[in-house]
């Protein structure tokens, strides 16, 4: 398996993945025209032809038979072309010591504080391929890419996790808040925002803070709660140092998790190493390895041995990465130390 930039010839495979992902996956619409537009834009991004504000790094996961089985994305910056809104879950205090009243009222503050940060998004792995290290490779490849090209990204990476919804796909948070201002179902708002209209809908909503006690009990219960489907993504990014600092999506109340780039494990622990070819043994740890290129980026995971400043991998891995012995690569163990200990 390798992760590489998308190309226009991937379009049929992407359409298939989009159909498989279903309507809930709004950033990957099963619409040829819109997908083609996104792919072309990604190609221009990898070619260095777009500004950071518009950059959309779209990666695919491809097996050795050249089958595209997954997709993930990384944006240069959010909120530089149109406002990017979140609520921050804060507090206002209602206090009258003379009456013994001291109430902390949870309050949602609309903000644009994530402006300029980069977003990891649009991850989808074909259900048949959800095994081994595939999910981790598809997700972490983006972080290693950021480690190599940090000047192309913001100080922080963020991820908006889908919020909690019921069996019918209704969002209690939306029903208690957004619906009063947009007067449409969540699924419709969700589709529209997938088409890039999110800030327009956001602008229908009040700018003033909102007291969470005015929301329904069901809505209050899902503030900052991720959809169970996002559990694997949350686990992977959580182990990398992403955490929830109180920012949520303004539509479904799902958590926005964030991490400073320099503190992300895959960034912090990654190093540039000279590649050597040999035969790593079966006990060698699995590494995430990047060929350090932008337009012809290749990232894979493989067993490897670290010897001083060189990384020993097998011939197939070098071939997958399109590198020769002696070329430098950027690499980091796929699993954090703690997780390796558990795996051992």
């Amino acid at each position, binding site marked *: 398996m390798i992760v590489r930039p998308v190309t226009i010839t991937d379009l049929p495979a992407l359409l298939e993945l989009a159909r498989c992902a279903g309507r809930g996956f709004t950033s990957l619409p099963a619409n040829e025209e819109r997908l083609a537009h996104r792919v072309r834009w990604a190609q221009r991004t990898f070619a260095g032809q777009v500004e950071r504000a518009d950059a959309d790094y779209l990666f695919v996961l491809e097996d050795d038979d050249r089958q595209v089985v997954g997709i993930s994305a990384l944006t240069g910056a959010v909120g530089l072309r149109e406002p990017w809104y979140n609520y921050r879950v804060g507090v*206002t205090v*209602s*206090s*009258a010591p*003379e*009456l013994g*009243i001291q*109430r902390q*009222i949870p*309050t949602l503050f609309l903000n644009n504080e994530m402006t300029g940060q980069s977003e990891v998004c649009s991850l989808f792995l074909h259900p048949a391929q959800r095994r081994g290290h595939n999910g981790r490779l598809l997700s972490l490849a983006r972080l290693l890419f950021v480690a190599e090209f940090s000047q192309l990204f913001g100080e922080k990476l963020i991820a908006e996790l889908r919020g909690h919804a019921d069996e019918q796909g209704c969002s209690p948070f939306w029903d*208690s*808040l957004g619906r*009063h*201002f*947009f*007067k449409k179902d969540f699924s419709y708002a969700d589709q*529209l925002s997938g088409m890039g*209209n999110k800030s*327009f*809908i956001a*602008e*229908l*909503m*009040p700018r*003033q*803070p*909102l*007291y969470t*006690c*005015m*929301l329904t009990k069901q809505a209050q219960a899902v503030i900052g709660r991720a959809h169970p489907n996002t559990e694997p993504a949350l686990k992977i990014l959580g182990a990398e140092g992403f955490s929830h600092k109180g920012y949520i999506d303004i539509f479904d109340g799902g958590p926005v998790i964030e991490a400073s780039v320099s503190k992300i494990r895959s960034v912090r622990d990654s190093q540039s190493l000279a590649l050597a070819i040999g035969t790593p043994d079966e006990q060698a740890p699995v590494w995430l390895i990047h060929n350090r290129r932008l337009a012809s980026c290749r990232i894979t995971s493989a067993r490897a041995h670290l010897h001083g400043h060189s990384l020993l991998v097998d011939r197939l891995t070098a071939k997958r990465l399109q590198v020769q012995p002696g070329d430098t690569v950027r690499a980091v163990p796929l699993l954090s130390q703690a997780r390796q200990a558990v795996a051992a």
Partner: protein
Amino acid sequence: MLALRPVQLSDLPQLQQLARDSLVGVTSLPDDTERLRERVLDSCASLATDVQSPGGENYFFVLQNLDSGRLVGCSEILASTGCNEPFYSLRNRPFSSSSRELNIQHGVPALSLCQDLNGQTLLRGFHIDADRVRTPESELLSRARLMFIAAHPQRFAESVITEIVGYSSDDGQSPFWDAIGQHFFDLPYAEAERLCGLQSRTFLAELMPQYPIYVPMLPPEAQACIGRVHPDGQEAFDILEREGFETNNYVDLFDGGPTLHARVPCIRSIAQGRKALAWKSSQIDAWGRYLVSNDGLADFRAIVAELNVDADGPVALTPAMLAALEVNEGERVRVVAL
């Protein structure tokens, strides 16, 4: 005969009984002798002040049975809101939710804490014995205040408002309070109103939400309370509505009750009242009921009387009426049809 007059310190014991009987949220009369005494003294001091423009003066009136001496009701006028402390209310106006790109434009009603009603004359504290509700005497208790304003315009603002008590259930539950105030105080409605009487209303208002509350986000029971009158407040509402008062976009921040307002020149009892010379007659060929007052301050008096009043002549009053009004023959009285 019943007569309305400014309160005196000697009324204190009876006032305490009125305070106990009055509806939660109406008078905020504290069942507390010391606080009641302050209220009475405040009214006396207001009457003694030479006022050029309205301020924090409060005029407190009682309705007394002249035969028994018993007090049967009370009412008040605050000369100007917002002088001693801010006057808070909730403004109910649509938040405009619009997007040019999505071609959407709609208004979402929102309640915002505001001080828009500062600087207006406030009628308040209307309370009458249950057996006198919807009688000419309850008209007297309410409207004599308007005649007092007519007699002393420099003491009052150009615009008069009143807050009508909002809906609460028989066991003292207010759905509006439960949906809003409760979150900010963690106190039951009746307890909050009691604190208003003891502390100041402003004191509690300042604990209320500073950011708008969007009406569709409230439970339906609370939405239904916006502008809804408590059954016991209906008479106060009806009397002033007939006087030309209208509801506006403001509601009470605790119970959601409506606010009524009118400009002084448009108030019926003020616009249609006229001054007439009083003359004494033991026999009156009455053909209508009228409110009659003198133009006094501390000696202000008002009664209901059956009279024969023509467009511009003098008006005949019985000796008992003249005595109740503390007016001598040949002096002027103010008369308006009931």
